[in-house]
């Protein structure tokens, strides 16, 4: 191992690009680039979090009513799925760093499967909202925003929208615009992440990564954890904000 590493120091690793001095400099440059990209992502999601915070401040009753209609069980399970996928991603980086390829492949595969599970559960939730006519505006032609309102004294029906005092249907629709924009953008990031993981998996099976060269695994890991963090904030803000009114 040590003599092998020494040979590489003289001739350079096969993955070393000519504009870098050595593998360490190349790896640090890659990580730095990913972090700068993630800063732009923080700004991008930050704008949507701002819109959410502002309209929630202005229309608290409508936001609580709309939020209470979301499925808290599916939301919580999805949070668990995503946290588990972040854990397996962290392990994938670990096994790449110590050069253990079999568990590395398994961890990448698990991360990919968990990511797709998240998207599947999200699809079920979106379909529920479609059934209850909660897709805002005319995003789906001929199926405009038109939920059935729960009336006072009626038996509780979870497909009907229960408006808290002071809430209006128009402002509930505003919540759903923000809900679909934020979770939709998050889901898009998950789809891109699943694509990147597929790429990692193929190259991992080909044995492309080793303790000297594993920047792709590391930076895609950073991206995956970032997407997890966005959801860590989205879950309480979207699903839990009005639960204590019951």
């Amino acid at each position: 191992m040590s003599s092998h590493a020494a040979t590489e120091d003289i001739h350079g690793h096969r993955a070393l690009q000519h504009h870098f001095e050595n593998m360490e400099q190349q790896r640090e440059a890659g990580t730095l680039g990913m972090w700068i990209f993630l800063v732009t992502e923080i700004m991008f999601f930050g704008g949507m979090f701002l819109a959410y915070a502002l309209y929630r401040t202005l229309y608290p009753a409508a936001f609580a009513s709309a939020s209470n209609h979301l499925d808290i069980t599916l939301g919580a399970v999805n949070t668990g799925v995503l946290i588990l996928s972040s854990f397996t991603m962290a392990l994938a980086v670990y096994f790449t760093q110590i050069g253990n390829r079999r568990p590395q492949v398994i961890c990448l595969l698990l991360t990919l499967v968990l990511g797709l599970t998240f998207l599947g559960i999200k699809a079920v939730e979106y379909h529920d909202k479609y059934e209850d006519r909660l897709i805002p505006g005319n995003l789906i032609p001929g199926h405009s925003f038109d939920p059935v309102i729960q009336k006072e004294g009626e038996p509780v029906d979870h497909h009907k929208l229960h408006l808290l005092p002071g809430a209006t249907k128009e402002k509930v629709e505003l919540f759903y615009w923000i809900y679909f924009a934020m979770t939709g953008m998050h889901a898009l990031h998950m789809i891109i992440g699943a694509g990147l993981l597929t790429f990692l998996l193929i190259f991992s099976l080909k044995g492309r990564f080793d303790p000297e060269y594993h920047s792709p695994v590391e930076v895609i890991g950073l991206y995956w954890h970032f997407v997890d963090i966005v959801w860590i904030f989205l879950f309480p803000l979207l699903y839990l904000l009005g639960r204590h009114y019951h």
Partner: protein
Amino acid sequence: MSEHIVPVRVYITIFLVLLVGTALTVAAAFIDFRLPYINTVVALTIATIKATFVVLYFMHVRYSSRLIWVIMAAALFWMAILFAFTFSDYLTRDWISIQR
């Protein structure tokens, strides 16, 4: 400066902390604290703690160079400007009455 390899038991600990945090945030959401904003403060505090653990350990920032810390701090600072300036406008609009 060579790469720091985080041991597996650290990853397992963080994973468990994140799961407990999720359970806590769900449980706390159903409690009526009878004071305005307390539920939001509790939810955001738990979320921020969870995010900090992910950033420090899963994303290795704790073991990264100062440069990465500066980049993170810059991002958070700009987010703070975005929120502070917008809310200093919207939340103060009815402090003075202007005929519209």
